[in-house]
């Protein structure tokens, strides 16, 4: 079986191929519970992520309290506006199971700035998610995620890293 839908699980919906590769690196972390996470195919653009969430996942999540979703989008240097645009489509009843994170501009810039592959970035972020430090997450292209990280850590960490 893929994710076990009878237990809490997390879908990661990446905006594009670069975000998908970061997500791949995240789940490559040896302590991520593979049976509790699935990286979905990238729809190709933040609007399409929003549309897919609204048209497919809203209904599914209402029917299954075990589903959580991380919308991995590029903020295109419009952090506040983009978050508002995404949040506007998230029903209040699902708000504590939907999370929006991503690179402040776009992953290509993060990759150049950090100087490693997307997968390695994802692995480093996963390691910090299960630990206590946030060095990579404090990068200037990622630090705007801190509030969302604070919100998601207590909910998703036990699902993704049950042994940590």
């Amino acid at each position: 079986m893929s994710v076990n839908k009878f237990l809490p699980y997390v879908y990661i919906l990446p905006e594009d191929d670069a975000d998908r590769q970061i997500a791949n690196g995240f789940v490559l972390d040896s302590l991520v519970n593979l049976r509790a996470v699935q990286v979905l195919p990238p729809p190709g653009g933040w609007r399409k992520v929003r549309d897919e969430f609204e048209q497919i996942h809203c209904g599914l999540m209402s029917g299954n309290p075990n589903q959580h979703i991380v919308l991995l989008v590029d903020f295109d240097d419009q952090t506040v506006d983009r978050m508002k645009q995404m949040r506007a489509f998230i029903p209040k009843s699902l708000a504590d199971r939907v999370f929006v994170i991503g690179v402040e501009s776009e992953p290509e810039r993060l990759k150049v700035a950090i100087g490693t592959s997307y997968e390695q970035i994802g692995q480093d972020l996963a390691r910090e998610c299960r630990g206590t430090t946030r060095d990579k997450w404090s990068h200037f292209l990622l630090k705007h995620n801190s509030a969302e990280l604070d919100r998601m850590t207590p909910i998703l960490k036990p699902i993704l890293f049950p042994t940590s």
Partner: protein
Amino acid sequence: MIRRLYVHNFRCLENFELLIADMPSSLLIGKNGSGKSTVGSALEVLQSLARGTNRVSQLVRPADFPRGRSGAPLRFEIEADIGDKVFEYVLALELPEGFKELRVREERLSVAGKLIFSRESSQVQFANARREAAANFLVDWHLAALPVIQAQSPTDPLNTFKAWLANMLILAPIPYLITGESEGETLFPDRQVKNFGEWFSGLLALAPAAYTQIDKYLKGVMPDFKEFKNPFSGTDFRSLTIQFQQEGASLTLPLSGLSDGEKCFFVCAAVLAANQASGPFFCFWDEPDNYLSLKEVGHFVMTLRRSFQEQGQLLVTSHNPEAIRQFSDENTLLLYRRSHLEPTQIRPIAGLQEPIRGDLIGALIRDDIEP
């Protein structure tokens, strides 16, 4: 871990160089006929040598020369990190005019730059244990020397290299041929995994702790899986049976009674357990997504990747979008061939001359991707 595989004049592989140093897992993609499975066949030639096949005619045939071009040698070179040393093995074969069988033209093994043995035609030059003086002897030029040279101790680098090469897993399982019945034990599964029963028995005999890992993996993919048994039925004959249980009811089936995809779960479990219990191994798996339901593909491939991330090295091929999406630009290699008259080219997706428009899957569907 393989750093480099170089193949020349073998089927569609001409001046072909696979560079996968520091890549715990990587993916070969490309159209049908682009040469992905042939990479496995080239590796299988080397594996067969280490598993004891020394007759050149049992390794390659004249038909393996591309388009009958037997004028140039057929060449295999492999460079690998084993332990903390770099091993390099070269085998060049030729088919002189009028010959029906290929013969050895050149063969060489070196470790950390130091020669273990070298050979030209039938003349073999072999260094002694202290690598000081050389001994010379002749070997029939239709036989490769690697399988027949006796290692001087268990820690002899020759032994280390042969064991590593022989333990490579080169897999393209055909579930129909997997029965779970066995008359002996082996640690060497064949490419189609027809000898799964023997391999499974050998693995558990070598490392009984592998049972726990296999059990854990199978319970993850088949929630009603309870246990497997591999009892003797007769003097030397074993038959693998699987018990399922749900809400007090149970069902026992022979392995042959499982679906094709479920048999692949067993192969995967054995690969994971083998790599952990007696690895690190190199594993080439031709289209591991075959026979699996779409929802299983991603986890199946990612589970393999994760295991080989810790130790060993995985090289897979695939046409399946979900399998391809489990890899990334830096570990996805495109194999490309303009026609059957031209050789295979290889290029990492991250190094394509023309960047991909949109996502990789879309580009593959549109046939809009060239090296």
